[in-house]
Structure formats: C-alpha cells, structure tokens
C-alpha cells in the first residue's frame, strides 16, 4: 500500500510540543463539569504523543461534550447533532494521515446518532472516541437521555423515567468488528489518562466511555461512587492497565482482566455495582475500513486518464474508415 503524499512529510527537526500547543479557548463548561477533566487528559495525551497540532483533528456532534474541539488548538469540526461519526469517517477516509478524535455525548451517540455508532464500530476506522456520558441532556437543560437511570426525574420525565438505561459498553461489545472498549470515570483522572493513551495507541475504533459528572443537573448522581472507592472496580492486566501503588491504596477493589477475552469483557460490561473502570476489550487484529478501501495506486492525472479512457472505450462507437477518410479529405 502506498501512502498519500500528505503522509510523506519528513521531519527536518524534532518538534516538541507543550500543553499550551493544544490549549484553545477558555472552556465554557460549568465549574465541576466532568468535561474539564476529559479535556485536560486528552491534551496531556496529545502532548505526550507529540502530535502535530495541524495534523490532529477533533470531531464532535452537538451537546456539552461536543464543545470540546473549541478548546483545543488543533483542527476541529463541531458539526451537527448525532453525526460526528460519519463526518469523522469521511475525514479519515480522505486523510488517513490525520489523527482523528471524536467527542460525543450520551444523547449525541446513543440516541440521535445511534445508527452511526453501531456502524462506526463495524467500520473500525482508526480513531479515538470519547463518549462523555453524564446520563442527562445538559445543553438543552435536563432531559432524560438513553443512559439515564430508571426513574430519573427530568423535564421530560417529571414523574421519573420509565425505561431502563442503555449500556453503551454492552452495546459496543455486541457489534461485529469491535476492537477496543474501555471505561473511565472523571473522578480518577490518572486512570482516565492511561486509558485514553492506550485508546490512542490502539489502531482501530477505540471506544472510551467516560462517566462524567453534571454538577448542574445531576449533582448527586455519582456521590456513592465518590464516597466509596470500593464501588469502583479497577481492571488491570499486563496487557492492559497497570495500577500505581498510590492509587491502589485508595482503590483496592481490583481485578485482573485480560482484554483479549471478549466473553469476560461482556460480563464485566454489564456490571453496575461495582462500576468497572479500565480496558475491557482490545483486539488489534480487526482490519480498519480505510485500509481495506484505500486504493493501492497513487492517483496521478495519468492514472485517472488511463482508467477513464478504458471505461469510455467500452461504450464508444468509432466512426468507420470511410467517415474518417472523408474527414481527412
């Protein structure tokens, strides 16, 4: 496979980037919003991976989550509600040389964009996805989302929501071609950073669900988890996360989990209490759609011309000899 010309840039000098190289405008999220933690973690990942800001692309849909690209100093695409995935796929297909990140929310991904989510998993294009899951619509002011717990009182469910919550981990793990699934929580930033870093390094569709607090509309939602570390189950493995000694002092509820084991990953995904945090599944063998589709040939004008003329030849009626002689005369 040949690389597009845009991938062939030679680095004449080693570049080093600092956090400021990725920091865009001042975030306008509420103070205490989990989105701030996600932003801080991904900016660290960009710096530590030394990504060139002009080659880095944050794509989002609509919602609080989807404001994130505005706070990066990379290229950003803040599109329309639910359609971050197909936009990101088009970008990646056209430009495999770009590092593509997607920021989406529980409404954006699991409700209005659910069809795209399922198929994005199937395509398994190389991108890192952050599902900012705060269990509620924030930007439109407190409506129930697909991940809202049963009985949640909101502006659209004033007497409590009637449906059980959708589990984004189980859904993702149920789709063919799934290649990376992890769960992070905004209140353990160290683990969130490690997970995002692993997600970025995985070649394929890396899906990270981040449980994130909404101080404005669901201020008490995650209180029990914040107060009781035992309610968080850290997943560790030599091929997964390694938990630091410092963290292990607080979060003692840990379990070895081999991320190549999809059956166990599905069992863990359906746990509600304790809440699993870590890498549930990773399979680097799943092919990426852009690799399957990308033409082996460089698109030179000569190459296009040859292919085009060959197609025309099949449908051409050539003038007979007489007519040609006549014309010559």
């Amino acid at each position, binding site marked *: 496979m040949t690389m597009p010309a845009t991938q062939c840039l030679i680095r004449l000098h080693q570049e080093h980037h600092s956090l400021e190289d990725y920091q865009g405008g001042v975030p306008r999220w509420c103070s205490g919003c989990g989105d701030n933690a996600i932003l801080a973690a991904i900016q660290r990942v960009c710096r530590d991976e030394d990504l060139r800001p*002009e080659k880095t692309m944050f794509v989002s849909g609509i919602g609080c989550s989807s404001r994130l690209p505005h706070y*990066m100093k990379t290229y950003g695409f803040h599109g329309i509600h639910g359609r971050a995935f197909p936009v990101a796929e088009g970008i990646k*297909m056209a430009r495999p040389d770009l590092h593509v990140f997607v920021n989406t929310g529980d409404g954006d991904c699991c409700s209005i964009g659910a069809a*795209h989510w399922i198929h994005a998993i199937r395509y398994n294009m190389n991108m890192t996805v952050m599902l900012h899951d705060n269990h509620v619509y924030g930007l439109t002011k407190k409506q129930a989302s697909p991940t809202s717990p049963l009985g949640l009182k909101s502006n659209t469910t004033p007497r409590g929501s009637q449906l059980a919550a959708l589990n984004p981990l189980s859904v993702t793990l149920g789709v063919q071609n799934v290649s990376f699934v992890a769960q992070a929580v905004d209140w353990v930033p160290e683990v969130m950073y490690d997970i995002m870093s692993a997600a970025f390094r995985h070649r394929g569709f890396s899906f990270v669900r981040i449980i994130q607090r909404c101080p404005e509309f669901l201020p008490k939602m995650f209180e029990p988890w914040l107060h009781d570390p035992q309610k968080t189950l850290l997943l560790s493995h030599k091929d997964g996360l390694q938990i630091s000694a410092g963290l292990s002092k607080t979060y003692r509820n840990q379990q070895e989990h081999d991320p190549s084991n999809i059956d166990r990953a599905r069992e863990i995904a359906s746990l509600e209490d304790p809440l699993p945090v870590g890498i549930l599944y990773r399979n680097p063998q799943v092919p990426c759609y852009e690799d399957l589709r990308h033409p082996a040939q460089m*698109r030179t004008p000569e190459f296009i011309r040859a292919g085009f003329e060959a197609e025309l030849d099949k449908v051409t009626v050539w003038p007979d000899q007489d007519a040609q002689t006549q014309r010559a005369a």
Partner: protein
Amino acid sequence: MNDTLTADSGVGRKTSPTRETKKAVALAEHIVEVISDSGEGAQRCGQSLAAIAARMGNGIWTTEIIPAEIQPPARSVAGASGIRIRMGSRRVTNGGDETDVVVAFNEQVLLGRVQAGELKQGCTILLESMWREHRDPKIVASYAKVVDALANDGYRVCEVPLERECLTLVSDPRRGKNMFVLGMLCNIYSLDLKLGHEQIGRIFGKKDEKVIKSNQQLLDAGWQWAERNLDFKYRIPATRSAEPQIVVNGNTAIALGVLASGMEICAMYPITPATSASHFLSDVFERVGGIVHQAEDEIAACAFAIGASYAGKCAVTISSGPGISLKQEAIGLAVMAEIPLVVVNVQRGGPSTGQPTKVEQGDLLQACFGSHGDAPKVVIAPSSIEDCFYSIITARKIAETFNMVVVVLSDASLATAQQPFPRPRFSEDWLAPPVDQSPVPEGAKPYDWDPVTGLIRRFVPGQPGGMHTLTGLAHDRLSHVAYDPANNEEGLRHRSLKLAALQKTLKTPPVFGDPEGDMLVVGWGSTKGAIEEAVERLRAEGRKVSSLHLQFIQPMPSGIREIMQRFRQVIVVEANWSDSLEDQIIDESNRRYSALAMILRARTLVDIDCWSEARGQPIKPGAICAVVRERMKHGGTQQ
C-alpha cells in the same frame, strides 16, 4: 404525432406471410417497444437494439418501462416491464410520442400499454402466440379476446410463435426469447446482423463461448423468421458521425463525470432510481483510485462526503428525493461552514415513497430552498445525457471554487435513457487540485470573507497555522462561535453574495427559435428534447413559438426577463404538480404554480403561465404542442 417526420407509418396493410423479397420502406424515425413480464429480458433486448442502431449511426433515445415491484405477478396489466426505443435518421433528443411497433410477450402487458395510451392508433403489434394453445382455457379465452379487440380497433396484430421457434434451439425459451426478438427487429429495421452478433458478444462477454453461440443462434433464427413471415421491412437511413460517440444512459454519464471530475469519494445509500450510477461507480471507481462508500443511511452518506470534502477532497453523494430530504440538515451544515459538496438528486415521483421508478421534476424547490434558515446553494440541471456527464465536472469546480453545495438535478427519465454523444476528450483541467498543505500566512483567518464576492480561502487540516474549529453555529471570521447580531448578518450576507458572484460569470442561455414571438416555452432538465421538438413542430405550422431552457436555476443568469419581454406569452412546461384552472375551486388567488414558474414569476415579475404534468411519464412533444396551441388560442398579453 410523428407524422411530420415519418415517411410511412405502415398502418393498414394486412399481414400475409410471403417469401418475396421485401423492399424496405425508408422512414425518418420510428418508435419501437419491447414489453414482457419482469425478468423476461425485454430491457436487454431493447437496449441491444438501441446500441446496434446507434452503432449504425442512428439517433436513439431509450425509455425504460419499469414496474414498481421486482417480480410483479406474471401476465398482469400493471406488470409491464420493457423498454421503448426511438430511432431516427437524425439526433434524437427525447422519447417522442406514441409507439409505432410493439413486441409483446403476452397480451396482458400489451393491454397495459394500450390502456396507458402509449401506442399509436393502428400500430403494428408482434405478439407471442403461445397463449393460444395454453392448457388453461381462461388464458386462451383472454388471449383470443384481446387479439380480436385489437384487430377490431384497427391495430395490425402479427402473432409470432416465439416460444415454439425458440424451443427448437434452447430448452428454456424464457431465457432466450429476447434475443430471438432482437433478431426479428434487426430484420424489420434492416440493421446489420453482424453488429447484432458483436452486441451479444459484448453482453455475454463474461460467460463462456457456448452461451454467446446459443444467443447468436437465437438472433439469427429471429432474423430468419421475420424475413420469411413478415411482409414489412423498414430502413431508417443513418449517417455515422465522423467523431467517436459514446452510448450510455444518464446515470452512467453521471458516474463517468465523477471519474473525470477528479473526485475521489462517493458516499451513497441505495435508492431508486439513483443507485445504478453508484453501481457503475462501484465497479469502475477503484480503477482510478476512487472509493464508493455505501453508508449506513442517507444522512451518514452526506456527512461522510462532507467530512471528506472538509479534509480536502471534494466528495459527491448521489441520491433521490426521499434521500435528499434526509440529507437536508447536513447540507445546511455544509452551507453554514462553507464546505464544498456535490449532491446529485436523480429525481423520482413524490411526495414520500411516491413513484420510485418514475420520472418527476418535483424536487426543484427543495433543491433551491431545502434545509432550514437561509441556505444558499447552487442548483444546476442537466438536460441531456451529455449534460449529465459535464454537469458533474462543472459542479465539482464550482463547489471547490465557491466553497458551496452544488445540487445536480437529474431525474428518472435521464437516468435510464440512452443517447449517443461525442466521446469526451479528457482534460487535466477537469481534475481537482492536490490537497493544499502549505502553511497558512500569519494573521490569515478561516472565514476572511471577501467584501465583494463573499469568497473565503478555506484552511484544510494539515496546513500549519490554519488550526481552527469549524462550526455549524453562527461564527465570526476566526470561526469562533458568535451570536451577536452583526456577526450573524455578516455571515448570512457573505454566504449569499457567493451566489451573486457566481451569477456574474454566467451567460444568458440561448433562445431556441426566433428571439421574439408570440409564445416562449421555458423549461429545465430532462424536458429539453421534448420542448424543442415541440417548438420545431409548432414553427413548422407557422406559429411564432420559441423556447428557453435553464441549466443554472440557482443562481439564475441575467437577461431572462429581457428575453421574456420579447414574447406575448410565456409558459413554463415541467414535470411536476401545478393546479389546473379548470378545477372548480381553483382561481388566480389560490392557484399553485409549478416550481420553476413560481421561481420565475418571483424573479421576473412577468405574468408567466404554466403547464405541468406529474404522471410519472416523460412529457411528450405532442402533448406540449397541444397545450401551446390551446393556450395561444386564448392569447392574451402579459402584464
């Protein structure tokens, strides 16, 4: 209706099988139809006939007759599947009026065509006669009844033992009759049988020699049968063009246009009647390094194309009415964020699922005004098969130059119609430039609108120094979200100015006929051939009628009003709905005009009349003639 062009309609003579050498009657043109149950190969037969005639140098126009279902019940009036081929000495620009010769595989599908009024009074019917000996007496009775009734009505019915004759050559005549019929038609129209053999080689090229051989035998047998048993023969004198021609339908032309435009990505979702363009592209696009992405839905297809375009490779999404409705929100994003995008709408009958396989020009207003808020986009409408090809190249260029959405409005009629046109000479100028990866000059802004033209220089990911976050929200020149009133207006004004900037580059379209007169017929899209043929006929009658055909509908070139003012009456003819003043409660205060008439009335303040038809059939030149004669009778001056 073809009388002015037809030397001999062949009506009225009795069939008497003869072995005498027949003299071929020279014709200016003829319309022939082959109809069968779905799956009996009538379309392949007719397409082959058209291809052979085109190779002989005849003008052709094919119109597919497609039932809505894949496998409608056999022998049903509604299940007629087939094709109509208009062949002429000269270039043919439309499907014409009624059929002169029809080959029918059973009497029920034939009845469907008679009832639809598609056959010329007294035309020649070649009818499969196997039904006369069918074991079901009901079928025998039905067949006899129809044959008698048609003969009584003056049609020339020739019964042909297709099944019996084919059985002597193949075990399953259902799969071979069509080539036998092709042989018969080659004989009837004095076409070169050698070209027929070549055509079969082309169709079955991927199969083994045996299949080709067997079909060529069927072709020969059909030719022989007609030679021995029919007492009529025609010849449509042809002049082969001195230039190489290509013979394709509108959808293939669109796909070839995508190839030649330098676009690299087509994102689509299957929908009739647009899909065949993507089928062809799926087959050939990869050979020039392109990709057809079948997305999970229409919205995703559009968003995928937008993503690719944004990233520097202008993409196309191909769909039809219902799919376009779904894409409208994403189209609005492309307008707001000024991302180039080519949207092809192969229109079909609407609203809702409507008539998926039938022609209608019902999407003009959604093309111009679709999506929410003020979303200016370019709308162009090809009016011939050749136009389908070039309009895609033009669309890509405009999209990238102006950073706009360009909608190309084809329709089901162009999609399946075949018409030869000069083989395009490839030009590197057609191709898209390489993705710009140069550093952005210091201080340059992503939306630095030109105060006169509204144009911007877009920054593409990978360009150092150009980093910004594109947004569908109202934004300022730095692409920062900005809600203040002045900013919002600034964005609206500059996005709108781009249409005016493009309009300044457009030429006034030429008038067909005299530049002044009594009646100007205005149209757009696939109706061009029929309208201009009608104008020719009306002028031959001594009427002062001309026509004007619009390729650019948004923006509209200047000078249209001035052209209209040189005619006493102006009428728009198009294939969509408009109210009829003959309906009891319709009057000028509530009459709904056809789409283009509405736009033109608003733009020119000329009191434009309209006549439209949304029957799902291509508009016939004869119908236009009748309307124009009638409206001219009522006369009246405008304004």
